[in-house]
């Protein structure tokens, strides 16, 4: 999927999905260089899952829509292959199974996930175990059946990964290098949301 793309420019991908109550889901994908300047922006027309999808995908519908349908499509349109992909929507993490790129969930600064209380090592929590790496938390997904997440800090950012892809943590550190200490990986999502809104207004 990523073959044939421009990899000469070190860049970071930011992918989010907006759930609009009337129009449906809008996906937005922003590629920034390491100076924070935009290189590419891609956004989807709104999509709405139909009744059959609701029934048949059940609790996996979000992951399917966010990751496989929207995320995969958007990355497919980009010309630049980023070093890593960041998202602020947890279901987008399912994209990781489809691309050979580290994908991480960026946690809001100063806030904790509601399910972050499900820390490894607590005996009363089913499935909880000792953290693989000291200082790493494991977080349960919302419905309790999806992949477990591990969180870690990168510079001043707090990120979460699918536990199955825990190696991506190392990749994040290696690929972003020393830049990681100064990056604010949360801020670009504000830009994407405004850009999606602007594009939506232009389409009316």
């Amino acid at each position, binding site marked *: 999927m990523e073959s044939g793309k421009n990899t000469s*420019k*070190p860049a*970071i991908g930011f992918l989010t999905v907006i759930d609009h109550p009337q129009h449906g889901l809008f*996906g937005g994908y*922003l590629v*920034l*260089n*390491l*100076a*924070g*300047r*935009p*290189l*590419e*922006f*891609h*956004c*989807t*027309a709104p*999509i709405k899952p139909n009744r*059959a*999808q609701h029934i*048949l995908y059940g609790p996996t519908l979000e992951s399917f829509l966010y990751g496989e*349908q*929207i995320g995969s*499509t*958007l990355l497919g*349109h*980009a*010309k630049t292959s980023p070093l890593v992909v960041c998202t602020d929507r947890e279901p987008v993490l399912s994209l990781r199974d489809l691309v050979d790129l580290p994908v991480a969930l960026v946690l809001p600064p100063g806030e904790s996930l509601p399910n972050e209380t499900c820390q490894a090592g607590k005996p009363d929590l089913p499935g909880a175990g000792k953290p693989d790496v000291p200082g790493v938390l494991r977080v349960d997904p919302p419905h309790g059946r999806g992949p477990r997440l591990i969180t870690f800090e990168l510079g*001043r950012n707090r990120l979460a990964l699918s536990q199955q892809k825990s190696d991506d943590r190392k990749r994040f550190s290696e690929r*972003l*290098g020393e*830049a990681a200490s*100064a*990056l*604010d*990986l949360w*801020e*670009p999502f*504000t*830009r*994407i949301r*405004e*850009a999606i809104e*602007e*594009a939506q207004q*232009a389409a009316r």
Partner: protein
Amino acid sequence: MNRQPIGESELFHWAPPLAPEVVSRDFCFTTEPLITGWNRALERPLAIEATTIPFSSAAPRAIQIPIRRASIRVRSFEFPEPIETPRTEQPAIAASPGQGQAAGVSLKLGTTRIRPPQDVIKLGDRLQYLLQPPLETLLSDRELAMPFQPFPFQFEGVAFLYPRHAAILADEMGLGKTMQAITTIRLLLRRGEIRSALMVCPKPLVTNWQREFHLWAPEVPTLVIEGEQARRAWQWRLPDVPLRIANYEVLIRDREILACGEGDRPIPFDLVVLDESQRIKNRGSTTSEVVRGLSRRRSWALTGTPVENSAEDLVGIFEFLAPGFLSPEMKPRKMGRTICDYVLRRTKEQVLTELPPKMFRDADLELTPEQRETYRLAEEEGIFRLTAMGEGATIQHVFELVLRLKQICNFDTATGASSKLERLEADLEEVAGSGRKAIVFSQWVSTIKRLSKALRRFGPLEYHGQIPSSHRDGVIRQFREERSAHVILMSYGAGAVGLNLQFANYVFLFDRWWNPAVEDQAINRAHRIGTSGPTTVTRFLSLDTIEERIDHVLQEKRELFDTIFSGAKGPGKLGLTHNELFGLFALPGRGVGKRAA
């Protein structure tokens, strides 16, 4: 069981019972069959009725629910690779502001965003603005160190100017229009969006701009256009000069060079900024004509007083920014709506809530008896002359009378008596006694010179059109640094714009200017960012004179300004018309509706 007594003890004896008696009887019954007919019935077979229910089922039908993988429509936008690159891959995605700065202050966190103006139509262009990092991040580049932490509203001003090709930054005096313009120019140069900018300002402010550029953008080479014509021609034609500074007079003198300096083509600029742009409010003036003829891609105007006299002032400025965008026939309220995306206007009250207050004192003074007598004679004589002239009386004649009367309000021409001077001396005693400094404004150099003599004990300094430009910076420095210099006497023309005198806490308007905007500019020399305490403004007004009548007109002009720039209700009268000017002396008007001032 029998109980028999045996001696002294009793013994129990068991005996078997007697055998029962048996009696036999013979029961011999005869039986006969009873014919009921039931046996035949029982021999008959049961009749069973069977119902056949057909159970013919077809093969089960499968319903197919298609789960189509809908093709998702995607809109894609690519942006050109930015010219500047961070040093050594220094990341700057909203990095902590100031993190990369080699010198200067560390900028506080902020998220001021650049937003596209309304006249940017293409979605891709709009998104390119929207997707830029916050301004604080852009300015956190180590090569863009800032000497001071800007106020948030100043970041907003930069974000306003940055994307605009036509804009007026109309902040009230003292809010840092200079810094905002310089920072924006700096960013545009750094990002390669402009390569040559021209800053045009009044002559006394050239050195001020030079100094401010050195402070806020030390890496930007500036070239002041000055000297003999041949030298200026060479300066204009020099290639690769990021920023030129020229005064309006030089621009007029060099109009030929500017018009065909590159072969037969005009010298092109990516950006032309007009400081104190009210200088081009008159569309018919040479200054306006020359600046409109400049070849440029972007046009900005900086002014604290976009409307000095009438809404036409704004039309004049817009003829430079976007010709034909405004027309003099527009109602002020509609004009306000039309320009809202092009003009950014903030007042100190809106943005500097922590700035010390500005306190006004209206000193309403009676003329001295000598002044009153002289005034009465002059007015009677003047009105008599105007009346005698009949239709031949022009607006110029009326102006002459107004000026003469105003001068008498300052000083009695015969005796030199002045109620204003008496009051000013008394006030300055207090100012000097508390070790503070004051600015006194007048519209006449002759008045300033008289005041200078009378106020000698307060160490007065003069700053007006007769002071050579080369000496003016020295005068300001002396006023700031010498403790004995308690007062500076300024003319509105020379001292109302571009000077930073925030170390003065008192402002006296010895006489009143024709429009309130110029007065505001004068006052704001002292009441601006960096001021150490409240600014007290004393406005002298001679009662029952022409000054009082003019004051009413000034109030109406303030209403006009509010209507255009704050959407206030009810437009006031549009300035001082010929009729109104003649009306100051109860004379019948000429040229109805034409504006005079």
